C-alpha cells in the first residue's frame, strides 16, 4: 500500500479542490437563508465572479486584483438581490432565477467581447500556480495529512470560513440577530432589531461568499474562465446547505460526503484490483448522489430551515 500514499494524498487534495467552490456557495447560502432570504442565485453569482476574477487578473497580471474584482461583482449582485427581495419584498426565487439567467447571457457576451474568444479565456495569473500555493512541506508523505501540503489560499480560506461563520452565527450578537430575523422578523422588529439592515447585510455578505466560490473555480482550480462555469456547483452548494441543516459545519459535512465519494472514485480508478476493478466507473461517479439521497431519507428527514426563510418581510402599516 505504501506506494499508494502519494496517490491517496493527491486524490484527497483533488477532492479538497473540488470541495472549496461548493463550500463557499453553501456558506453563502447559510448566511443569507439564516436571515430569511433564499438565494438560488448562488450559481449565477459564482459565474459572474469567476469571470470578473479572470478579467481583473488579465488586466492587471495580478491574481489578487482579480480577487477584488470578483468580490466587487459579488457585492453588486448581492445588493441587487437585496434591493429586490428586501427593499421591495419581491419574490426571492424569481429574483434568483433572474440573476442566474443574466449570468448565462451576460457572461457569454462579455467573454466574447473582452477576450475575443468563445468558450474559454486565455490563462491568467492565478492562485493555483505552484509559487502561489501555501507550502507545508513537513506534511508531505504523511497519509491523508499530506494532502494539505500544497493547497491554494482559497481552499484554506474556505475551510477557515466554516469556523468563522459558525462563530459569527452562534456566538455573536450579530449572529443571534441574523437568526432571529430568519426565524421571526416581526418578533425581532418589536424588540428594536433593524430587520432590513440585518437582511441587507446577510444577503450581500452571502453573495460575496458565493463570489469566492466562483473565484475558487477560475483562479484556484483553473487559471482561466470556461463558458461552462459554474457547472451547477452553486446548486450543489444549495443542496449541501439544506442537507447540512442550514449550519456551516453541517454544510461542510455534506460536501465532504460528495468529496469523499469523489476521492474514492479517483483512487479506485488508479488502484483498483480484482473485484473492485469490475465495478463500472459510473457507479463511483454516481456514489455521491446516491449517498445524498440515502442521507436525505434517513438522517435529514426532519430538517427544517429557519421558520421565515423565503418569506418576504413587510412592515405593518
Amino acid at each position, binding site marked *: 500500500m505504501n506506494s499508494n500514499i502519494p496517490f491517496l494524498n493527491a486524490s484527497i487534495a483533488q477532492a479538497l479542490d473540488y470541495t472549496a467552490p461548493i463550500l463557499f456557495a453553501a456558506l453563502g447560502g447559510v448566511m443569507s437563508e439564516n436571515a430569511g432570504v433564499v438565494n438560488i442565485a448562488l450559481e449565477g453569482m459564482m459565474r459572474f465572479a469567476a469571470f470578473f476574477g479572470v478579467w481583473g487578473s488579465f488586466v492587471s497580471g495580478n491574481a489578487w486584483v482579480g480577487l477584488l474584482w470578483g468580490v466587487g461583482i459579488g457585492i453588486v449582485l448581492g445588493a441587487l438581490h437585496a434591493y429586490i427581495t428586501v427593499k421591495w419584498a419581491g419574490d426571492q426565487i424569481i429574483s434568483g432565477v433572474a440573476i442566474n439567467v443574466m449570468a448565462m447571457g451576460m457572461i457569454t457576451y462579455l467573454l466574447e467581447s473582452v477576450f475575443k474568444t468563445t468558450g474559454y479565456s486565455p490563462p491568467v495569473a492565478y492562485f493555483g500556480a505552484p509559487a502561489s500555493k501555501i507550502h507545508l512541506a513537513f506534511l508531505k508523505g504523511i497519509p491523508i495529512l499530506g494532502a494539505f501540503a500544497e493547497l491554494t489560499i482559497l481552499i484554506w480560506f474556505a475551510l477557515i470560513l466554516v469556523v468563522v461563520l459558525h462563530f459569527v452565527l452562534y*456566538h455573536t450578537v450579530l449572529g443571534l440577530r441574523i437568526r432571529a430575523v430568519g426565524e421571526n422578523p416581526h*418578533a425581532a422588529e418589536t424588540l428594536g432589531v433593524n430587520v432590513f439592515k440585518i437582511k441587507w447585510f446577510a444577503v450581500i455578505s452571502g453573495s460575496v461568499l458565493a463570489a469566492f466560490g466562483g473565484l475558487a473555480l477560475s483562479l484556484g482550480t483553473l487559471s482561466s474562465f470556461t463558458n461552462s462555469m459554474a457547472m451547477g456547483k452553486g446548486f450543489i452548494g444549495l443542496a449541501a446547505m439544506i442537507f447540512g441543516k442550514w449550519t456551516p459545519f453541517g454544510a461542510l459535512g455534506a460536501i465532504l460526503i460528495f468529496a469523499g465519494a469523489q476521492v474514492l472514485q479517483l483512487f479506485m480508478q488508479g488502484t483498483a484490483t480484482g473485484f473492485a476493478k469490475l465495478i463500472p466507473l459510473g457507479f463511483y461517479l454516481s456514489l455521491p448522489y446516491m449517498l445524498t439521497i440515502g442521507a436525505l431519507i434517513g438522517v435529514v428527514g426532519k430538517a427544517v430551515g429557519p421558520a421565515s426563510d423565503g418569506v418576504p418581510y413587510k412592515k405593518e402599516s
Partner: protein
Amino acid sequence: MKALEVKGIVKQFPGVLANDNINLSINKGEIYAIVGENGAGKSTLMKIIYGLYTPTSGEIFVFDKKVDIKTPYDAIGLKIGMVHQEFMLIPRFTVTQNIVLGDEPSKGIVFDYKKALNEVEELSEKFGLKVDPAEKVANLPVGIQQRVEILKILRRGAEILIFDEPTAVLTPEETEDLFKTLMKLKKNGKTIIFISHKLKEVIAIADRIAVLRRGKLQGIVERGKTSEVELARMVVGRDVVLKIPKAEAKVGGTVVSIRDLTVKSKRGIIGLKEVSFDVCAGEIVGIAGVEGNGQAELVNALIGFTRPIKGTIAFDGEEIRVITPFNIRKKGMAYIPKDRKMRGLVLPFRSRENIIMGQHTLYPFSKNGVLNNIEIDKFTTKKLEEFDVRPRDIHTRARNLSGGNQQKLILAKEMSMEHKFLLASQPTRGLDIGAMEFVYHKLIEEKERGMAILLISLELSEIMGLSDRILVLYNGEIVGETTPDKTTEEELGLMMLGLKKQKRVAQ
C-alpha cells in the same frame, strides 16, 4: 399620576373608521381593561399606542408628557411594552435568547450567553415569574411562553404593560396564573392595560373598564359598580340574552354510536380509554371536561385523523371499519373544528372558495372537474346572507375576516352540507358575545331539524345551557353522565377535576 393619556384618537382605514375620537386616561399602578367585541377597535388603539399604526389624528401623553410614537422602538423607549395576542417568540431560541434579543449582554462582538442567563434568572426572581432560562421556547406550554413575553418587556424596563387578549390562548388554570402575575406586577407599581372580550375576566381583575363599540368609547365603569349583564349591554349595544333559549328535545333514533373507543394521543400515550356513548337524532350531547382530557383524541378518531387502537364507531347502526375524513363525511358528518385557522378554513382562499370546500366535486358546483362559477357565486351570496357573514363580499379572503365572521363562514360551509351528525368542537372559542349568540341559535336550529349533535366545550355555562345530556371526560374516561336539570356547574366542575365520579346508566 397619569401613566397614559390619549386624547381624540382617530384612526381611519380605507372604508372603516376603526377609532373614532377616543379619550382615555389611565392612572399609574392600575389595571385598566378595555373591552369590546371583535372589530370594536381595541387592538387598533393599542397598536397606535405601541407605534405599530400611526393615528389619523389625536394626541398621546405618557407620564404627563406629550409624545410621538412612530415605531415600537419609540414605545419601548417610553417604557411601554406589549404582550401580543400571537406571541412574538422564536420557538427555536431558548427563553434567555428570546428575552435578551435586541439588547444583548456582550463582550465586544461576542454574545455573553452566561451573563444573559444570569440576568434572566435574576429578573424572573425579582418579579416572581418562574421560568427555566435555558429551556427552548418550543418546549414550553402556552402559559409559560406568555410569561417569557412578560419578562421580555419587563427587561426593557416597561412601566406600562399592554396585554392584547392575553387569555384567549390560555386554559382556565393558566388564566388563574396570569391573574396572579398581573396582581404581582401591580404591586410592583406597573400599569396594566388589559384588552379582552371576556367580561367575566375583566370584572374579576380590572380596576376600571372602558367599553368600545364600533370604534367609539361607550363609557367607563369602575370596579364593583357593574354586572356582567350591564357590561354586556354596553358592549353589544342592546340587551343580550346570555341565557340560552331551551328547546325541547325530540329524540329520534341513534345516529352515531361509539363503543369502547380507545385512542392514542399525539404523544403516544393512551388519550381516550374505552369510551362508549350514543348520539341520537334531535339531541345535543355535551362533553364537558378540562382541555387535554381526551377531547382531541375523540375528535381525531371521529374525523378519521387517528386510527383508534380499539373500539368501534357506527353510523346509522353500521360500523365503519376504516374511518377517513372522506368516508365519514359521506355518511353525513359535519364538523366545526376548534381551530378555525388550521382546520376550519383555507385562509388565503376567498369566501366563495371556502364555502364550497368539501362539496366542490358535487353538482351543481362542478361537472366533469370544471367548476361552475355562476352557481358557486349564487350559492355563496345566498349563504353569506343566511349566516350573516360580514362583509357580504364573496371575494373577501378568509384571512381578512374577523374571528366571528370566520366562524360564521365555517357554520355556513358545514351546515349546508348534507349531514345528520354535527361534531361541534368548542364552537364558540375566542368569539365575542354577538357571535356566540349566533352559534347557539344555529346549534338549536340544527337540533330542531333533527340533527344529532355532539358538542365539546370547555365552558360549563355552554354545556349546561345547550345539552340534553352531559358526559364528563376526565383523564380520557367518561366519569359521569347526567342531564342539566339533575346537576349543577359546581358538581360538573368537581367531576371534571376527577374529584367526583358518578355511576353511569348501563348502555
